[in-house]
């Protein structure tokens, strides 16, 4: 059961059309699916949204179990400026600290599609502080994957504790959401697939990553979710 804060990259770089229809829109679709998956997985799971670019990072939605609020706020985001990853992460941590249900595990999901300004050492320091406070971090890198690879890999290594954090790099081409659905970020706690027919190896451990586009079970029914129906078809 988790409290997740999603950090959105709404910088000018997200206008780029290398991910259809634009980096920003692909990101928005992925966030909507992610929020849906998390809130469906557990009735008390909460999701919050924060934008990283603009004058200052802003929390648009404080962690809520209400999917409608999250979907709604995604439609009102402006593209502006450059991302400030370090401030965003600090603010996300604060939002998590003030969650209503202290029993929830804490997680930050960061979407990055612009060059990260912070130095590697600074990112590692931030990662260690997150790890110290038991905050897991998933990073989705797309759009500026090559430039950011080294920094994000160092960040991931420093924040990862027993495999609770993931770094998924998505090259241009396949649909961002599809790649994410079959990645460990969607597979969630315990490796359970969130009921998406496209989940690679549905229900199995989170090893997912990479298989672009849904594998799609025959007849579109996940045998792990509904074995009787799958057998009947």
């Amino acid at each position, binding site marked *: 059961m988790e409290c997740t804060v999603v950090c959105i990259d709404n910088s000018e770089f997200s206008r780029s059309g290398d991910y259809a229809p634009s980096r920003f829109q692909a990101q928005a679709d992925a966030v909507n699916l992610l929020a849906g998956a998390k809130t469906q997985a557990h009735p008390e799971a909460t999701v919050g949204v924060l934008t990283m670019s603009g004058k200052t990072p802003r929390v648009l939605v404080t962690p809520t179990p209400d999917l409608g609020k999250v979907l709604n706020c995604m439609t009102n985001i402006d593209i502006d400026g450059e991302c400030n990853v370090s401030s965003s992460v600090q603010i996300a941590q604060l939002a998590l*600290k003030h969650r209503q249900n*202290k029993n929830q595990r804490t997680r930050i999901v960061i979407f990055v599609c612009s060059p990260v300004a912070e130095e590697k050492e600074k990112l590692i320091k931030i990662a260690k502080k997150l790890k110290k406070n038991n905050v897991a971090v998933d990073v989705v890198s797309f759009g500026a994957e090559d430039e950011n690879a080294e920094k994000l890999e160092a960040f991931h290594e420093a924040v990862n*504790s027993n495999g609770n954090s993931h770094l998924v790099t998505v090259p241009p081409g396949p649909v961002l959401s599809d790649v994410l659905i079959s990645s460990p970020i969607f597979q969630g706690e315990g490796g359970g697939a969130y009921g998406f027919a496209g989940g690679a190896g549905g229900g199995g451990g989170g090893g997912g990553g990479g298989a672009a586009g849904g594998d799609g079970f025959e007849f579109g029914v996940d045998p792990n979710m509904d074995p009787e129906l799958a057998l009947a078809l």
Partner: protein
Amino acid sequence: MAKDLLEHIDWSQLECLNEQGLHTATNALKQGYREQDELYLESDTDEQLLLNIRFNQRVKLQSIVIKAIDADKAPKSVKLYSNRPHMGFSDTSSVPCAQELELTPAQLKGDPIPLKLVKFSNVDSLSVFVESNQGGEETTKLCKIALFGSSGEVFNVAEIKKQGEEH
């Protein structure tokens, strides 16, 4: 008369911040594990640890045992907080602690350290904050934490059943 409060620890709620994946709080607390010196709790990114222990009922704490064999990495400054569930590191500077301990090498051998009875007379949740270690090392290691005290009168259902079977 103080007894070991091991059976009153709520293991499902046990939380330790900044512990290493392989060297967790269960190594220091659980019966059997805590007796083995090779099974220890070690901190991860720096030398601090924050252990949140919930009890399954209100208990009185009388003493605590903290054992560590690695002299330099052994805890030095330890702060105890009572009834503050889910404490985080940032809370330790703002929340007043119930008792502060400066551990000596003698205490680290495993001698019970008496606690202020008044502060720990009705404890539901205990937080143990290890602030620093003896040698200023990067990580802190300890192999046993044991809590002694007393619990209230508890209706032990298992015992009732036993008597019923005797008839």
